[in-house]
């Protein structure tokens, strides 16, 4: 598996650390209420198909990336810097 880092170019999967679903980019406001925070902290989708994930280019550029990956085929359809995905 290869990931096309927007900074470094295409690299082997072993250079990256896998964080999980990209929920950390959508942190609720402090006063969003219990339901929103319960979902943010505890509830995860488990999709068979396309999902957005956070990966860290640990032994490369140290960039945090948002990778759009199909969990069935492992096809990667998009990679962007987390700092740009947020804004």
């Amino acid at each position: 598996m290869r990931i096309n880092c927007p900074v470094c170019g295409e690299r082997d999967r072993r250079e990256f650390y896998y964080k999980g679903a990209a929920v950390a980019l959508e942190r609720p406001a402090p006063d969003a209420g219990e339901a929103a925070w319960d979902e943010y902290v505890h509830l995860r989708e488990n999709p068979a198909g396309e999902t957005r994930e956070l990966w860290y280019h640990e032994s490369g550029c140290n960039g945090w990336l948002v990778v759009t990956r199909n969990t069935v085929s492992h096809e990667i359809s998009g990679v962007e810097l987390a700092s740009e995905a947020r804004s």
Partner: protein
Amino acid sequence: MVELVAKTPCAGLLPVSVGDLRIEETHMLPMSVIMPFLGKEEAVGATLQKAHGLALPPVNRAEIDGETSVLWFGRGQFLLRGAAPDADLTDLAAVTDQSDAWAVVRLSGAKAADVLARLVPVDMRLSAFPEKSTVRTDLMHMMASITRLGPDSFQIMVFRSMAQTLVHDLKGAMEAVGARG
């Protein structure tokens, strides 16, 4: 009184030769990581050029002039080696001294790229990785910085604490490449 003796990271480990392949430790030189503050990259580049005669390199490239070099060293990070950083840089960037933090070795020989091919998940052939190319990548299980110095020579850096593992892994790969003739 205890007498402290300065030791280089690879003291007692290098040089090692296998056929025409060779690893040796490079001179201890001052090293600093420079992380330009937001929007200050251009100013850092101008200061580096003026004070040290080297430009800020683009991603995966190195600027080298004799024993002085600037490596791209990660996202928003550059490594200045061979000179104490100009005082003006501290207004423009976070500058940290790393002089004792890294083991820095040179791997040379006609099949040096074949040795790295056994250890590194990046294409190190001259056609894909020409002179003054640099990468941050894995060397076996270690985070490394690898720079091509010439057609048959590379600079390899890992954390100082991993010097022995680096030499062990390189030596094993050199012997394997050497055995194939």
